[in-house]
């Protein structure tokens, strides 16, 4: 029994859960307000936008890539939607046109990323580092370098602020988005192929996986997620500009790292990444409630990343020692035992 407990806390999920327990215990002691419905909802709202982007980023990370352009992409998505919505006088048609145009641009951006990485064989890090500036430049051009402020309460406002059944719409969108992403990764042939591409690209080609097309689709999904997140964000904030989602890349990668996802590709899933996002969101919220000055919050965020990586490397070394990075479930062990008999 005690062996099982130590094993659990040595596993990636054990670590995540125990970190969460520690944070919750601290909050019970110091700030019971943490558990109010209002606060829980505000935590989820803060996570919702980055959660959507985390889903997109995860697809790209699983194939062993990265997309550093998501913050600029979100800003561009938000700006495009804002221009069309405001320009049309906040009509439904204007909103839809803006939305469609933004998604089309997102697909183009993802396509360019994917093609650069697969057909031209450039490293994703370099390609997306460059497009990060290209997209930011595009935002400055389309907004003339100024903020777009919104004041209307039409469809545009609804996207980020409606509360069907009392639940903020962004949270609902976030939950649906993660559910679909988890389904695609876990249950579809496309999802499986991403793990294979990340795990061994040469072998993937030899078992008939269309590695290039599937990689391009992953980059497109990542861009679309970023643009989509940006659109919800500008509706929530009622303003758009170059600074929209400017810290998205940090938050999204932090969530992925804290979620224990291997940046080298081939491993990881939505539950881990979303748990990472949740943990980071909860800690940020806790720091605010505990009255930690905002300057120190960044500091803590950095410490958390290093701590998470250290813990991760430490346990993966240990589990390498035990030769079981992915722990077989009890069921498989039982079947193994019976197979041996």
């Amino acid at each position, binding site marked *: 029994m005690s062996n099982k407990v130590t094993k659990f806390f040595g596993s990636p999920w054990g670590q995540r859960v125990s970190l969460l327990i520690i944070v919750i215990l601290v909050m019970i002691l110091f700030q019971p307000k943490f558990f109010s419905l209002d606060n829980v909802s505000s935590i989820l709202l803060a996570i919702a936008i980055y959660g959507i982007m985390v889903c997109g980023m995860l697809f790209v990370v699983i194939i062993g890539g990265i997309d550093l352009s998501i913050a600029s992409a979100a800003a561009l998505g938000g700006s495009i939607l804002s221009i069309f919505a405001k320009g049309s006088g906040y009509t439904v048609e204007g909103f839809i046109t803006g939305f469609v145009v933004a998604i089309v641009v997102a697909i183009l951006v993802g396509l360019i990323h994917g093609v650069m990485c697969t057909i031209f064989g450039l490293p994703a890090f370099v390609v997306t580092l460059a497009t990060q500036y290209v997209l930011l430049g595009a935002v400055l051009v389309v907004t003339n370098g100024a903020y777009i402020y919104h004041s209307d309460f039409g469809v545009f406002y609804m996207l980020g602020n409606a509360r069907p059944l009392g639940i903020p719409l962004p949270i609902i969108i976030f939950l649906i988005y993660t559910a679909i992403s988890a389904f695609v990764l876990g249950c*579809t042939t496309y999802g499986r192929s991403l793990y294979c591409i990340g795990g061994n690209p040469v072998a993937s080609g030899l078992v008939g996986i269309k590695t290039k097309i599937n990689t391009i689709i992953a980059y497109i999904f990542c861009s679309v997620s970023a643009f989509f997140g940006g659109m919800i964000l500008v509706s929530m904030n009622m303003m758009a500009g170059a600074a929209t989602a400017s810290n998205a890349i940090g938050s999204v990668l932090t969530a992925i790292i804290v979620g224990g996802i291997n940046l080298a590709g081939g491993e990881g899933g939505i539950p881990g990444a979303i748990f990472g996002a949740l943990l980071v969101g909860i800690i940020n919220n806790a720091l605010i409630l505990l009255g930690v000055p905002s300057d120190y919050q960044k500091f803590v965020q950095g410490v958390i990343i290093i701590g998470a990586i250290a813990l991760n490397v430490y346990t993966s070394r240990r589990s390498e020692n035990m030769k079981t990075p992915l722990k077989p479930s009890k069921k498989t*062990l039982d079947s193994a035992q019976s197979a041996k008999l």
Partner: protein
Amino acid sequence: MENNLLLQAIGINKQFSGVPVLKDVGLSINKGEVHALMGENGAGKSTLIKIITGVYTKDSGEIFIEGKPVEINSRQDARNFGISVIYQELSLIPALTVVDNIFLGQEIRHRGILDKKEMRRRVKELIEKYEFDINPDAIVQSFGMAKRQLVEILKALSMEAKLIIMDEPTSALSAAESEKLFETISGLRDKGTSILYISHRLEEVYRLSDRLTVMRDGENVGVLTKEEITPAKVMRMMIGREVKQIKDTSGKKIFNDNVLEVKNLAYKNILKDVSFKAYGGEILGIGGLVGSGRTELIRCIYGAEKQSKGTITLNGKPVKKSISKNIRNGFSLVPEDRRSQGFFPVLSIEKNVTIASYDKLAKFGVVSRKKEIELTKKAIKDYDIRPPLRNMPVGNLSGGNQQKVILGRWLTRDLKVLLLDEPTAGIDVGVKGELYQFLEELSKKGTIIIMVSSDLGELTHVADRILVMHDGRFFEEFTHENVTQTAVLLAASGVHTEEGKAL
């Protein structure tokens, strides 16, 4: 007698996720002996070595070095106790010189600055003592495998190793190079260094070792002294079951409705003009030297390369240029280097087995978990994949079991054509026998099997017909009845059997 013991391990146990891998294993190595360690893949040899060298920690048991109980918890501990390992994948840095490599991480410093003179002097001293043919100032990059191995041995000696562990040291060496290595090993022994020698090649072990420990299923099944070693005895201890050596051709027939035809195939400058027909029900062996175009031929048939000339047809229909379409039409490939081209090391046995069968396991792109688990269980059972854990990452399995996973990936499908490229490289005798049996069964069902191999024994025993390639063309054809290993070897070097007789 007692003080002649260098290393003694008693009652070593080790489990991985509840599955015992070592069961009460003992090992004793004398000073100045060559001690061989044999066993099938998955018998626990590597695990035992990793425990002795501090890579893994044992669950229970004791290790003594020169009579004193020791705890080896890291590679550094092992080095301090005088144990060095020379792995199959060498750990040298190609851009550095011999001296730099040898003192890497343990440089001699004089007031904080590297004392290159002293390091060079010590390396020269070692080279002279052991009579190695090596220039201490050469860059390692310029060396072949054999010389690199010598540098590794020198490195071990510079750390005053009392025990050098060699894991399959000849697997990347030519015959002449292996011969030199044996001389080196004998020289080391004569100067008092102990060698623990792990190999699948029986001949080497008979020649070299003073004593031999045999492992099977995580247990030490016996220790033989030089006088007691006979091939039959070792095989019996290792395998614990009979291996069929002679091919049973009874009940075999040719399926004329499953024919692969290759006509005037050319590819870049490698394949010049290759034509042949292969029929269902026969195992076609393809021999030849590395670089003769064997691998490219197979890859062209599979659709992984585009031929520059010629046609490939299966039952009259041209073979597609798309791997995924070919797979759906019953093609399959077990590629040359399983680690880099065959399996997905971080993914589970399940994912590795099912990856090529989603056309059967998925509807509208959604995979059926139930069918997936069923298929995996069947593959694990039918092909005896060990350990039988669906979720075990394939990178953690032994070489033989990794190959079984790749075979399982294909054999669970309805195959028309199975292409194999060096399917048993680095796999031990017992698993080899099993793989051959799988091929034989498959062939009886009417699948066309084309197997490229450098292993003459494998070609002559397993294949019904053998085509030998030389310089991008088929040079000579043999049948199972008239083939000899010498003839294949001669043909591979461009000498016809008839001419060979005349020589």
